[in-house]
C-alpha cells in the first residue's frame, strides 16, 4: 500500500464513524427542513394571494431566460458603475455555488465508495469546496467592510443582517476547521493534502491535538457538530423566510414574473366592472405588486437614482416599498392567517403620506436601477388614482391642469393661444380640409400652446416640408393625448380623451403618426392600443434621422454651437431611444463630444413628468435646477433636448441659474432647422 493509501485508510475512521453518522442525522431532519420551507413560503404565498388578479403568464422561455440572467449571471448588478458590489455579490454567489457543488459530490462519495483511495472526482470536489469557501470569505469580507465601515447612505442595517454575516462566516470557517483538524489528528503525514485541501492543510498547523487517539476522535465529533448545527439552523432560518437570504428565491421569482409589456404602459381600469378606483388598502394591489414587497433586498439602488430623493424631497422609492411591506405585515400579522387587524392605519396618508405619492415624476429611474424588477411607479400611480378619483385629494395646481383638460382638452390653463397659432404662415395641411396625407404630425398640447415650444413645432414642420413629406395635423380636433391625466391619477379623464382621439384618427384612417413629445409618443404607441388605437408611432428624432440618412434633407454639417444632449425619461428609459438624437447632433456638427455626468439609462429627470409641469415646487428642491447645474459643468453652450417638458424645464432652470445668455436650451429640430437654413 502506498503512503497515500495508508493515509486515506486512516482517514476512513473519521469518514465512517463521525461524518457518516452526522450526515445520516442531518438527512433524517430533512423533512423538518422541508416543513420549515413550506411554512416560510406559505407565509408569503398567503399574503400574495390576498392581492388582485393580474395576468403574468405566457412567454415562459423569455421569463426563464431573464430570470436566469438575473439570478445566475447577476446581470443587473454587474455594471461598470457598481463594480465593487457587483464583484462582491459575484464572489459570494459564485463561491456558494462552487462550495455546494463540491459538498454534494463529497456527500455522495460516501455512498459510492470513491474515498479510499480517493478518486479524482472526490479530490477535485474537495478542492472546489475550499475554493468556494475562500471566495465566500472574501466576498463576505467585502460586504462587511462596505456595510459596517464604509456605510453608504443607501444601506440600512437591521439585526437580521448581522445574523446572516455571522452565520455564514461561522459555517465556512468551521467547515474549514473540520478538515484542518482531521488532517492534524491523522497519524500519517499527509502526502498531497497541501494540493487538494490547501486551506485545511494550513489550518491543521494552527490547532493543537491530543496525544490520545480516542480524544482526537471526540474532538473531530465536536468540530463536525459545531459545523453541522449552524448549517442546519441557518438553512431552517432561511426557509423560515425571516432572513434577507430569502431573496435567493423571492427575487428570482419576482424576476420570472416581471412585466414583459412595453415599459411605458400602465394598466387600464375597466370602469364598467370595477369597484376599485386605484388602491387605498394594501390588498387592493395585485398579487405581483405584493410579491414586489417581499422581493425587495433593501439594496437602495432605487433611492440613489431617484431625482426627487436626490433633490431633498420626501420621496424615497426604497422606503415606499419597505413602508408598504411593513404595512402589509402590520395589517396581516399572524402567520398563515388572512384575517386583518381591526383599526388599521390609512395606507396612503399614514403609511406612505400623500407628499411622497405626489413627489414622483414617473421618470422610472428606480425601476431601471432595481436588480430584482420591482415596479415602483405603478404602485405610486395606483395610489394617485385613488387620491384623484375617490378622495379628490390632488395638489391645487394639478387640479387646475386637470380641470382645464376636462373643459378644454388641454392642461395649459390660462393660455390664449389656439392649437393652430403655431402653424401661421407655414401652410401646414389640416386634415379637416384635406385628409390625403402619408403621416399625421401629432403636435401635442405643449408644442401647440406653449409659446417657447411653438418654435419647436414650427421647426419640425419646416423640416418635414423640406424633406417633401406629405403630412398634416388635426388642428383643433386634436385633444390632449391624456398622459398628464393618467400620470396624475385621473384614469377616467385619460380614457375619455383617449377614446375621443382614437375615434377621430380612425375616422381619418390614420396609419402613421410623428410626434415631437415623448410623452405623447409613449401614450400613443403603448397605451392607445389598450383601447383599440393601433397606429405606427414614430418620434421626430427617429423620423428625422431616417430622412437625413436617406438624403432627403440637405443640411450643413458644421455648426458653431456645441451642444450636450439631455436624455428625456420617456424617450430614453421608457423607449430606449438614445442613439438617434446623438446621431442627429453629430451629423449637423453640433455635438460637443461631452456627455452629461448622468446620461443614457442613468439620465437625471428634468422634473417635468408625472404631472409636475403643473405642480408647484419648493424652490430649494427643484429638479430642473439640479440638472441645469450638471449642464453648466459640461461647458457646452447648448443643452439639446427632444422633449417639450424638458425644454420648458431647462428654460426655467437656466433662468434660475442666471446663465440664459450663455447657455441656450434648444430642441433637436430647432438645431437641424438652423443647419437647413445654413445650407440653403
Amino acid at each position: 500500500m502506498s503512503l497515500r493509501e495508508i493515509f486515506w485508510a486512516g482517514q476512513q475512521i473519521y469518514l465512517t464513524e463521525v461524518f457518516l453518522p452526522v450526515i445520516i442525522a442531518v438527512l433524517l431532519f430533512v423533512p423538518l427542513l422541508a416543513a420549515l420551507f413550506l411554512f416560510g413560503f406559505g407565509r408569503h404565498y398567503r399574503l400574495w394571494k390576498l392581492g388582485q388578479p393580474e395576468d403574468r403568464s405566457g412567454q415562459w422561455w423569455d421569463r426563464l431566460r431573464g430570470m436566469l440572467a438575473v439570478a445566475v449571471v447577476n446581470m443587473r448588478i454587474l455594471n461598470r458603475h457598481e463594480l465593487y458590489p457587483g464583484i462582491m455579490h459575484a464572489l459570494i454567489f459564485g463561491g456558494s455555488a462552487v462550495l455546494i457543488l463540491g459538498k454534494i459530490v463529497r456527500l455522495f462519495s460516501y455512498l459510492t465508495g470513491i474515498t479510499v483511495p480517493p478518486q479524482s472526482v472526490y479530490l477535485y470536489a474537495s478542492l472546489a469546496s475550499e475554493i468556494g469557501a475562500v471566495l465566500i470569505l472574501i466576498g463576505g469580507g467585502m460586504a462587511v467592510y462596505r456595510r459596517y465601515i464604509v456605510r453608504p447612505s443607501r444601506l440600512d442595517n437591521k439585526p437580521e443582517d448581522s445574523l446572516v454575516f455571522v452565520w455564514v462566516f461561522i459555517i465556512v470557517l468551521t467547515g474549514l476547521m473540520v478538515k484542518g483538524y482531521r488532517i492534524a489528528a491523522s497519524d500519517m503525514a499527509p502526502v498531497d493534502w497541501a494540493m487538494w485541501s490547501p486551506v485545511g492543510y494550513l489550518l491543521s498547523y494552527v490547532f493543537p491535538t491530543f496525544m490520545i487517539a480516542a480524544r482526537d476522535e471526540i474532538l473531530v465529533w465536536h468540530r463536525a457538530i459545531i459545523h453541522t448545527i449552524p448549517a442546519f439552523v441557518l438553512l431552517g432560518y432561511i426557509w423560515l423566510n425571516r432572513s434577507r437570504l430569502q431573496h435567493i428565491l423571492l427575487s428570482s421569482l419576482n424576476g420570472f414574473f416581471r412585466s414583459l409589456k412595453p415599459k411605458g404602459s400602465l394598466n387600464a381600469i375597466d370602469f364598467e366592472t370595477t369597484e376599485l378606483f386605484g388602491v387605498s388598502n394594501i390588498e387592493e394591489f395585485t398579487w405581483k405588486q405584493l410579491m414586489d414587497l417581499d422581493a425587495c433586498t433593501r439594496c437602495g439602488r432605487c433611492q440613489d437614482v431617484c431625482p426627487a430623493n436626490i433633490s431633498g424631497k420626501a420621496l424615497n422609492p426604497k422606503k415606499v416599498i419597505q413602508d408598504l411591506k411593513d404595512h402589509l405585515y402590520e395589517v396581516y400579522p399572524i402567520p398563515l392567517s388572512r384575517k386583518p387587524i381591526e383599526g388599521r392605519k390609512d395606507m396612503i396618508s399614514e403609511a406612505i403620506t400623500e407628499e411622497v405619492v405626489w413627489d414622483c415624476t414617473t421618470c422610472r429611474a428606480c425601476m431601471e436601477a432595481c436588480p430584482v424588477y420591482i415596479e415602483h411607479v405603478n404602485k405610486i400611480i395606483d395610489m394617485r388614482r385613488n387620491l384623484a378619483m375617490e378622495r379628490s385629494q390632488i395638489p391645487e395646481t394639478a387640479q387646475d391642469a386637470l380641470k382645464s383638460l376636462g373643459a378644454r382638452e388641454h392642461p395649459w390653463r390660462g393660455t390664449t393661444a389656439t392649437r393652430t397659432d403655431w402653424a401661421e404662415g407655414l401652410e401646414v395641411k389640416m386634415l379637416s380640409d384635406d385628409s390625403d396625407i402619408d403621416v399625421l404630425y401629432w403636435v401635442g398640447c405643449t408644442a401647440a400652446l406653449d409659446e417657447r415650444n411653438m418654435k419647436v413645432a414650427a421647426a419640425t414642420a419646416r423640416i418635414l416640408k423640406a424633406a417633401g413629406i406629405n403630412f398634416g395635423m388635426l388642428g383643433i380636433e386634436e385633444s390632449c393625448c391624456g398622459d398628464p391625466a393618467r400620470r396624475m391619477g385621473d384614469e377616467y379623464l385619460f380614457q375619455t380623451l383617449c377614446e375621443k382621439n382614437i375615434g377621430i384618427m380612425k375616422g381619418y384612417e390614420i396609419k402613421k403618426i410623428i410626434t415631437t413629445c415623448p410623452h405623447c409618443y409613449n401614450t400613443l404607441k403603448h397605451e392607445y392600443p389598450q383601447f383599440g388605437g393601433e397606429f405606427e408611432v414614430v418620434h421626430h428624432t427617429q423620423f428625422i434621422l431616417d430622412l437625413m440618412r436617406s438624403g432627403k434633407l440637405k443640411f450643413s454639417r458644421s455648426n458653431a454651437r456645441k451642444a450636450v444632449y439631455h436624455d428625456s425619461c420617456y424617450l430614453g428609459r421608457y423607449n430606449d431611444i438614445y442613439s438617434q438624437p446623438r446621431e442627429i447632433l453629430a451629423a449637423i456638427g453640433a455635438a460637443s463630444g461631452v456627455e452629461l455626468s448622468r446620461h443614457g439609462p442613468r439620465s437625471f429627470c428634468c422634473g417635468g413628468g408625472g404631472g409636475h409641469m403643473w405642480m408647484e415646487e419648493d424652490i430649494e428642491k427643484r429638479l430642473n435646477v439640479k440638472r441645469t447645474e450638471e449642464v453648466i459643468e459640461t461647458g457646452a453652450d447648448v443643452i439639446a433636448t427632444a422633449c417639450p417638458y424638458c425644454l420648458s424645464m431647462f428654460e426655467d432652470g437656466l433662468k434660475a441659474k442666471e446663465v440664459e445668455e450663455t447657455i441656450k436650451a434648444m430642441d433637436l429640430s430647432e438645431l437641424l432647422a438652423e443647419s437647413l437654413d445654413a445650407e440653403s
Partner: protein
Amino acid sequence: MDVVLRSIAIIIEVALLAGIAYCFLQGVKLAVTDMGAGTKYNRALTMAVAMIFAIVVVFFIAHLTTFYPTV
C-alpha cells in the same frame, strides 16, 4: 510560547462558539417577535437573551480552558 498558542486557539474557538450562540439566540428573539410577541416584550426578551448568551460564553471559556489539548 505553547501557552500563547493555546490561548490564541482557545480565543478563536470561543469566538466561533460565541458567534453560534449569538446567531441562535438572536434567531430565537426574531422568531418570537415574528410569531406575534408585542414590542412591549422586546426589552425583557433582549435581557433574557443577553443573560443566556453571557452564561454560554462563560461556560465555553471554562470548558475550553480546562479541556483544550495542550500543544
